[in-house]
């Protein structure tokens, strides 16, 4: 089992929490992991991405080659498109449809949604609204992780366990809020892919 995942979003949207949860689950199952992060200047409202690689066998490169990613998991729709050169022909894009508009020339949102909709393999969902319904807009990243969970090659139980472990320190309320968000995303993805 080997999954190469590009995590995408805008600085501050919580993509590193998604990486932390998947990373915990992978390590818990004795898998190898490499995850490169973005720190420094680009965190100031710029586009950010993280390369997450998990595998039963040892991993060589910290970076995923172009055309080889199994998944793009994005918390912002335009950002999901930025990394398409990395996606393999059989790869899936899981993205939120909620735009994060902090540039004056942000494209018309309908065009962004159309571009996502035209991808052969994608799950697009309004993570922010779903997260609000599940408790708090802050857990939109966990909605997206839930939607990506059927594609990660590991059991949903192991991901729930990892969410619990990642947010444990912040108290039971926060854990449950994130678990609810995760479940909501998971249910929607399962419905979409039948």
């Amino acid at each position, binding site marked *: 089992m080997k999954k190469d995942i590009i995590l995408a979003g*805008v*600085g501050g949207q919580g993509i590193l929490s998604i990486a932390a949860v998947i*990373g915990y689950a992978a*390590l818990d199952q004795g898998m*190898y*992991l*490499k*995850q*490169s*992060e*973005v*720190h*420094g*200047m*680009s*965190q*100031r*409202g*710029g*586009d950010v991405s993280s390369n997450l690689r998990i595998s039963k*066998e*040892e*991993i*060589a*490169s*910290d*970076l*995923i*080659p*172009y*055309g*080889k*990613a199994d998944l793009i998991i994005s918390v912002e729709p*335009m*950002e999901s*498109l*930025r990394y*398409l*050169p*990395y*996606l*393999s*022909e059989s*790869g899936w894009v899981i993205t939120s449809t909620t735009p994060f508009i*902090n*540039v*004056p*020339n*942000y*494209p018309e949102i309908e*065009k*962004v949604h159309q*571009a996502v909709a035209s991808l052969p393999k994608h799950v697009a969902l309004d993570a922010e609204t779903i997260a609000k319904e599940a408790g708090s807009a802050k857990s939109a990243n966990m909605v997206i992780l839930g939607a990506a969970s059927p594609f990660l090659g590991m059991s949903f139980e192991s991901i729930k366990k990892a969410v619990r472990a990642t947010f444990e320190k912040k108290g039971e309320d926060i854990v449950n809020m994130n678990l609810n968000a995760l479940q909501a995303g998971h249910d929607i993805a399962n419905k979409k892919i039948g």
Partner: protein
Amino acid sequence: MTKKLLLLGDEAIAQAALDAGLSGIYAYPGTPSTEITEYVQNKKNQINGNIHSDWCTNEKTAMEAALGMSYAGKRTMVCMKHVGLNVAADPFLNSAITGANGGLIVVSADDPSMHSSQNEQDSRVYGKFAQVPVLEPGNQQEAYDMVHYGFDLSEKYGIPVMMRITTRMAHSRAGVNVTTSHRPENELRLPFNLRQYVLLPAIARKQYKTLLNNQAHFTKESETSGFNAYTDGNDHSMGIVACGIANNYLRENYPKGRVPYPVLKLGHYPLPRRMVERMARECQSILVLEDGYPVVEEMLKGFLGAGLVVKGRLDGSVPRDGELNPNIVARALGLADTIGSPVPDIVVSRPPALCDGCPHADSYLALNEALTGFSKGRVFADIGCYTLGAMKPYEAINSCVDMGASITMAKGAADAGMVPAVAVIGDSTFGHSGITGLLDAVNGKAPITVFILDNATTAMTGGQHSAANGKLEEICKGIGVEPEHIRVIRPLKKFHEENVKIINEELAYQGVSVIIPRRECIVELNKRMREKHKKENNE
């Protein structure tokens, strides 16, 4: 006994230092090196709360403090980003002559592709310049292991050891096996020869001979340490030298990492002569894969490039600049490249920007308005979040060169007749390298207006302590800036008119003025409020 931790490259280095008997770490924050010191600050209590780990004023003071701790016999590490080594270059180069007593590791974190820097200089050049051993880890585990080895090497030969990492190494996470036992700190033990560190010419000449005589030993160490490894391959039409993480990109291109060519995995300099000679003897050509400058490539090729076919960044096999990746390496190997779909045209760039509510934004709006009566191009800025003032909608600054250059460049331009000239520098950068420049300006009675943007932190790197915090006015007064020309303003919309008026008054003054827009970094303020809120909830 070992346990497995998931660590960034930076964190692996810090954990290793703690496990290897570190007594003090010295650093000025700089991407991608910052997390080494932060990790020590956060974790040292698990081992020894007395380990020194406060931030220093700049990389030079950090390097010198580390040299002092090494003099006293204790193990120490000094960390910086690559351009920080320029600031620390004087003590670094001379430390190779004094030598080390307690183990001394200098970590320099390079930033190829300039993710967060103004150049992509290669610290290995400094290592060669100083003639000290250089370690370059190829993965997080090696980063951990090399620190243990590096302290031993440093103490064995009484020499500072450089560790060179790159952004990708620093900020990538992987499982690392760490020891569960901690080596004790060294006892206080001064150098046997108390004149060793006195670099008077007569002594320095002797010390330099020692350094030169040690070069052969350093080469021998790099042949036997295990961090350089020669793996033979079936196809001798080419041999590959893969430095640091370049070896990972190489292996990524072959199933199970089985490269058909002979490979010299390089992680320890000076170059392991015998291994290199073997490759030159047995292979028809050599491809060098290295992040940063063509350092090894140039060494193998020599100036005339006669005799040996060496491919790399100089002959175009690999791009001349920028970070390596698996695809660049694939092309250099002549393998088929891979690529997914193109980026749709509607995707626009999303550059970093000043945060909503950032005090610098209000400072720039006021400065821009105050300067409307003058021709453009008068503002020299510096290194920090406020460098983003170069972008729209502010477009407020005209330079960003090196730490502290704002004040001195403004002075030079004013000397040339450009009046008014404005300098914009952050509080932390002012402490780092602005004070001496301001003294020059005062002594030269230069007609410049210096903005010290005081957000009470080192914001760009994540909110570390700023050395001059709470002392700015006193420092300026002490240097000789006239007290009536030190003006503190509040960078807020509601004070905009008043601030513009004050700025105009100081622009008109034909001497050194200092304007201090003072308001806490919005990110730090929010962080503080969240923590306060959390504390109150817990009570």
